[in-house]
């Protein structure tokens, strides 16, 4: 009976979402205060019923209710409790429910945070979010109902995909979804602005922290996914340009461009229509990502649901959202033009370049991701776009961007002061070049031009980002919290760049056959296999190797990579043994039993790979600081009605 209540809760939430999507928008259009005031109660009630539905599904997992098809397919009595909870979003239906829960959570956060906003603005934003809820709730109810019953309940479930039985999976999808879905807030603000025809600097000030918040979660979600792929997929790569990774990365690039463009709109009142377009683009790319993942049109490790009906539904939803948004944009955006000017060396120019390059990168990745689909659709054969292509088309726009960051963050608004920047920071250029040439050569004994360029890019950003904070520490400069956040986030970009360049230039990888007592030497480390024994876990049996790592005579670590066999799904999983320091990772993964007592193993040396995820963490933390800047704290202030006329 209880699962049926879950479905009823979803139906009620759907109806409330219709109310939340229609009445406030109509009310704002007619300037009817009563109708507008429906927005918040409807949003809270919708959230309440979605939360009930989500809670019921979670309890079905915790209590092993295998009469539910979704639970029976994705859980098992032997599955530890933490993974039974994570299994709620381990497959399609539940992760859509999570999507909806997160959307309604963002909505009530907006409902709380918008109390200082003029009534029509808040009503429109909450209304647009309501319409998005209508779409996703309809999708879940009509194509992906998690509360479907089985005629005969099995004794035990089919278990969660072993790949997903990992602590990082407990938080990776929620983080990613919070980021994805959070971009709907910026989208809703953009639609609200276009509906009202009012877009001033105040609008950008409201929109900016929401966008940055979504971006922070998206950054963390992507970094977690990369980290998880690194140790759980077993083979030590940290980014595969898998279509689904691209699907999360494109909105990230667009969101990055968006809040840089919002900075210009907030500070100078410029780039208005461009900002709107980016807000539409960022959220559309999120939806496109959902479509790519959920429809199963792409070959990917993540594409666990292949159902054409779902694909068509999301495609239709995507089409409606993009079409309506762009139609509104075409109709309204031209009237939002602004008249201020700036010098070619001003910060505005650098932010414009930032936007162009980020959008170019996102576009190239989009083309590369969709290319195989298009070619196949045209009947021109089946092709795949390899990682080399993506790397190339990503690096070409991103490399100049990293160099521009260092200059752009120190130039002034409107006038530009390149002379002064050059005087003040030229030492950074000198140090960068020196270290980038000498560093890799001294540490790794190799000189490669591309590495020097890449390391220069990263170091340049790092030094340029710490210069002002260091001056501030000595009392020679003052920084607001938002500025500190900006410098910190750029420091993260630099750390990431250095890590990515060093690991791809100097990483070593070797596949070998090895038996007990033998050793392999990689990058000066002697790795000896001491033995292999059997082990068991809650729902798997394993072969566990013991490897001692020595550097010279000194024993520095013992690693225990495993080959697991998950008994319910009869699937094999490789658990790597990793010895991690900031300077390098040593990574051992066991392959196959070769039959004569020896095993194939893959041993990898990954210098500075930790900087990749550390960089992402630092970026996210920078974003967090920027949001908490004092100027975004909610202030109750009545807006002057005259503001509209000025813009026209």
């Amino acid at each position, binding site marked *: 009976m209880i699962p049926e209540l879950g479905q009823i809760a979803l139906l009620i939430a759907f109806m409330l979402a219709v109310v939340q999507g229609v009445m406030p928008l109509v009310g704002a259009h007619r300037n009817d205060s009563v109708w507008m005031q429906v927005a918040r109660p409807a949003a809270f009630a919708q959230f309440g019923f979605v939360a009930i539905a989500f809670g019921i599904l979670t309890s079905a997992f915790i209590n092993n209710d295998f009469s539910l098809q979704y639970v029976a397919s994705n859980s098992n009595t032997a599955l530890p409790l933490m993974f039974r909870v994570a299994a709620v979003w381990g497959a399609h239906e539940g992760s859509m429910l999570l999507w909806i829960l997160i959307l309604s959570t963002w909505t009530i956060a907006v409902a709380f945070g918008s109390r200082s906003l003029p009534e029509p603005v808040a009503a429109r934003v909450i209304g647009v979010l309501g319409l998005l809820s209508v779409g996703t709730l309809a999708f879940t109810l009509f194509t992906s109902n998690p509360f479907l019953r089985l005629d005969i309940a099995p004794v035990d479930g089919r278990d969660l*995909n072993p790949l997903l039985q990992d602590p990082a999976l407990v938080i990776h999808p929620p983080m990613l979804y919070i980021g994805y879905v959070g971009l709907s807030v910026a989208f809703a603000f953009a639609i609200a602005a276009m509906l009202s025809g009012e877009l001033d600097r105040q609008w950008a000030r409201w929109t900016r922290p929401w966008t940055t918040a979504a971006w922070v979660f998206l950054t963390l979600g992507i970094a977690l996914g990369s980290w998880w792929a690194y140790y759980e997929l077993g083979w030590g790569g940290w980014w595969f340009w898998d279509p689904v990774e691209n699907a999360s990365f494109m909105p990230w690039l667009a969101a990055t461009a968006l809040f840089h463009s919002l900075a210009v709109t907030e500070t100078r009142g410029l780039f208005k229509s461009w900002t709107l377009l980016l807000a539409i683009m960022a959220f559309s790319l999120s939806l496109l990502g959902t479509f790519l993942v959920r429809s199963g049109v792409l070959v990917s490790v993540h594409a666990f649901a292949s159902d054409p009906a779902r694909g068509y539904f999301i495609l239709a939803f995507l089409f409606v959202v993009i079409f309506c948004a762009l139609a509104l944009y075409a109709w309204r955006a031209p009237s939002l033009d602004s008249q201020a000017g700036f010098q070619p060396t001003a910060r505005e120019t650098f932010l414009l370049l930032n936007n*162009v390059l980020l*959008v170019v990168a996102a576009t*190239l990745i989009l083309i590369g991701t969709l290319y195989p689909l298009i070619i196949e659709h045209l009947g021109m054969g089946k*092709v*795949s776009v390899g990682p080399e292509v993506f790397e*190339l088309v990503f690096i070409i726009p991103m490399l100049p961007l990293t160099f521009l960051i260092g200059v752009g963050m120190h130039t002034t608004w409107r006038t530009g002061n390149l002379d002064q920047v050059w005087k003040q920071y030229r030492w950074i250029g000198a140090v960068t070049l020196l270290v980038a040439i000498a560093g890799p050569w001294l540490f790794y004994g190799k000189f490669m031009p591309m590495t020097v360029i890449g390391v220069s890019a990263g170091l340049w950003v790092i030094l340029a980002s710490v210069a002002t904070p260091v001056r501030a520490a000595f009392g020679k400069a003052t920084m607001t919290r938002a500025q500190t956040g900006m410098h910190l986030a750029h420091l993260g970009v630099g750390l990431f760049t250095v890590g990515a360049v060093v690991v791809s230039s100097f990483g070593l990888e070797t596949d070998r056959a090895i038996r007990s007592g033998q050793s392999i030497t990689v990058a000066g480390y002697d790795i000896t296999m001491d033995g292999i024994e059997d082990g068991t876990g809650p729902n798997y049996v394993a072969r566990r190797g013991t490897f001692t790592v020595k550097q010279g005579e000194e024993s520095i670590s013992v690693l225990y990579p495993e080959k697991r066999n998950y008994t319910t799904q009869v699937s094999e999983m490789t658990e790597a043994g990793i010895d991690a320091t900031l300077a390098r990772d040593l990574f051992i993964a066991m392959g*196959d039993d070769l039959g004569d007592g*020896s095993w*194939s193993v893959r041993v990898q040396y990954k210098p500075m790979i930790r900087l990749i995820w550390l960089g992402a963490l630092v970026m996210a933390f920078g974003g967090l600081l920027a949001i908490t800047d004092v100027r975004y704290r909610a202030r109750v202030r009545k807006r002057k009605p005259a503001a509209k006329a000025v813009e026209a």
Partner: protein
Amino acid sequence: MTPRQQRMLSVGLLLGGLALVSALSIGAFKENTGFYFELDQVAAGDTPPDRAFRVGGLVKEGSLFREPGSLELEFTLTDTKNELVVAYTGVLPDLFRDGQGIIARGQLGEDGRFVAEEVLAKHDENYMPPEVADSLERQGYKPAEEG
């Protein structure tokens, strides 16, 4: 800059960016896309002689053979009608096993064996690469659906 110049700059940069995008993508994709061939196309000799491509099929039951203690191995791919022997050196993916749908990337050798640089199996026991599913369907084979 005056607003007019500013707009010109923005539009110019955007157009320039777009031109760069198209030029790059056309060039890069032309050179680097990997083509997929069906096993019957390989049998008929329709594959390019000195370019890497991808093939896919099921791992034939009991066909995996390896030199004990060595990383060199051989297995046979089948679409139930045509077969292809694949040679590979290295560590096989976790879900490589008899009857599993896999994809191999490499070149066709002189001796008719396919020398793979990479063997891919997806991390889901029920997963069938769409290419392989298509090939099997063309050969009249329907993979068993699990309920």
